[in-house]
């Protein structure tokens, strides 16, 4: 059994990258591995938005990530520097930046780049999903 970290740069619904990452996570778990961390960077941070409202007949990426976090205890980490400038903020950051609304809720978690470096160093595998 290996521990995996996935690095997701792809924005939701614009390219296939987020779908590929989700499919990979599910296939890895099916083979008995642990997907411990998904780190969202670059436009990948938009995957963490709690405000997605896709058509009923399309996959709801936010819900799928959330389900992965809950069922596989995968940490869903969002780069705070990449997120803040793109409108990806949780309640705490919204208050700090005087914003009336927010777009991120648990299990997604805003963190620093240090957590990505940590994931690279401590997991058995890192797989990157570009836009």
């Amino acid at each position: 059994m290996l521990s995996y970290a996935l690095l997701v740069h792809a924005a939701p619904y614009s390219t296939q990258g987020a779908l590929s990452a989700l499919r990979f996570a599910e296939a890895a778990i099916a083979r008995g591995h642990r997907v411990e961390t998904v780190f969202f960077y670059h436009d990948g941070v938009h995957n963490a938005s709690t405000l997605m409202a896709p058509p009923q007949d399309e996959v709801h990426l936010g819900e799928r990530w959330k389900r992965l976090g809950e069922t596989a205890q995968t940490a869903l980490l969002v780069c705070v520097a990449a997120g803040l400038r793109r409108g990806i903020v949780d309640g705490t950051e919204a208050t700090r930046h005087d914003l009336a609304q927010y777009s991120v809720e648990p299990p997604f978690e805003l963190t620093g780049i240090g957590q990505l470096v940590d994931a690279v160093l401590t997991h058995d595998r890192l797989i990157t999903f570009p836009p």
Partner: protein
Amino acid sequence: MTDTTQSASSSEALLIVLRHPPHGSSWLREGIDVALVAAAFGREVELLFQGDGVFALLEGQAAGALDQKGTHPQLKMLEMYDIERLWVSQRDLDRRGLTVDDLMLPVTTLDPDGVAALHAARPLSLIF
């Protein structure tokens, strides 16, 4: 290969240029969406498949994993919207080892001069 650029019925037709392949990104779907809406508004619409956009027409496409519908069902609706003029760059087919026999819809191929002439003949166009 027929250069029918000059015979296009209206120089005011909206030309939608599709340059991206299906599934990998939303460009193709978003471009076709614009074409369908413009046609629904009564505007004459033509499509030009250029570059990797020729892959949109490849016969035998299917839905992808995780509810990815793809764009081939949309393309099959073109006729219903009276979008009947489909141009394809012959050189871009050649570059990819494809021929018109590999495509799912009847198209008119254009050589590079024809591609340039079509672009030049249409005052309104959008690239996706």
